[in-house]
C-alpha cells in the first residue's frame, strides 16, 4: 500500500479537507495536496476527474473519492 499515489484537492478553509489530510498523515501515508483556492489548473483537473465542484476530492491512484469518506478511503488504501 506504500506505492499508491494519493492526491488531495482541498481548500484551506474546509474542515473536512483538514481532517482528511490529518488522517492520511496519522496513517503515515504520503500525499500531494493541491490548494484549489489558488491553483486554477488544479480546480479544472479536480472538476474533470470528479465531475463536481465540492472539496475535498481524494484520488487514490485512478480512483476518486468525493468528500472525506473514511471507510471508502481505508478500503481504497488497503486494496
Amino acid at each position, binding site marked *: 500500500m506504500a506505492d499508491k499515489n494519493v492526491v488531495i484537492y482541498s*481548500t*484551506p*478553509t*474546509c*474542515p*473536512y*479537507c*483538514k*481532517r482528511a489530510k*490529518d488522517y492520511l498523515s496519522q496513517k503515515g501515508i504520503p500525499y500531494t495536496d493541491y490548494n*484549489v*483556492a*489558488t491553483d486554477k489548473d488544479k*480546480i479544472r483537473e479536480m*472538476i474533470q476527474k470528479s*465531475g*463536481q*465542484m*465540492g*472539496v475535498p476530492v481524494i484520488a487514490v491512484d485512478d480512483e476518486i473519492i*468525493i468528500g*472525506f*469518506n*473514511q*471507510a*471508502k478511503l481505508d478500503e481504497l488504501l488497503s486494496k
Partner: protein
Amino acid sequence: MYELMIIGGGPAGIAAAVYAARKRLNTLLISGDIGGQINTTMGIENYLGYQFIEAPELIEKFQTQVSQYPIDQKIGDKISRLKKIEGGFEAVTETGEQYQSKAVIFATGKRSRQLNVPGEKELAGKGVTYCAICDGPVFAGQRVAVVGGGNSALEAALDMVKIAEHVDLVSLTPLTGDAVLVDKLGDAKNLRIFAEYQTEKIEGRDFVSGMMIKDVKSGKSKQLDVTGIFIEIGLVPNSAAVDGLVPLNKWKEVPISCASETTMDGLYAAGDVTDVPEKQIIVAAGEGAKAALQAHRYLQRLET
C-alpha cells in the same frame, strides 16, 4: 444484542459513548461520520477548556477520547430506520445491515435545509453547495449567488464578496441576520441584494449556469447568471429514522423529557435532533452525557 446503541457521532453521540463506555455498557456507536455539524465550521471559541480550537482538532480529540474505550464503532454508515423489536430495538442501515440493542440513544443531529426547487438535487455538488466555508474558494473569480437571509447566509456572502467577481444575495424574507453583518455587506461594491425574492429553479446542464428568482411582491421573475449557488437557509433535524416510532414536533424534532426520555421506553435522544433549545456543541455534549446515564439506569432496571 448490544446493551446500548448510540446513533450519531456528533458531540451528543460521542459524549454519550464516553459515558456509556465508562459504565461498561456493551455499546455500539454508529454514525455517518465523527463530528457531525462541527465538520462545517472552522474556529470554535465557546467550548469549555479551549479559548480557541479549530474544528478538525476538536473532532480529532473527540475521536481519540472515545476510541480509547472498548466499544464497537461503525463509522461511515447511516441508520435509515429504527424499529421496536421484542426486548429492544433494531436499526437498519442504508447499506442494509442490521443491529440490535436493548436501549438506544438517538443523536443524529441536523443537516442543511434544502430549497426543494427544480434543478437543486441534480446540480448538488455541481455548483450547488451547502458548505460555503468548504467550497467557497473553488468559485473565486466567478459570479455566484447566496440563498438565505440569516447569519449563515450573510457570512457566506461576506466571504464571497472578497473573492468572487459578483455576489447576488437572495432572501425569501427581509434580511434577518445581525445588523453588524448587514452593515458590513453594505460596503461591498460587487453585491446585489434581492430581499423578498423566492428562488424558483436552478438551471444548468452539467454544471450550474444560472437561476430564476421571483419578486414575492410584484410576482416578476428574474434570471441570474451564476455558476455557484450557496444555500444557507437553516437546518433540519435528521429524525426520519424514528418518524412514526415516536411523535415529532412541528419542526420534526424529537421531543424529550428533562431526563432525555422519548415517549418510548428504552429510547433516549440527545443533541440537535431533539427539541432541547439552544443548538451548541457544549449543550449537545451535556445532553449526550445525560442520556447515557439515564440509559444506564434503564438497563439496570431491566435486569432487576
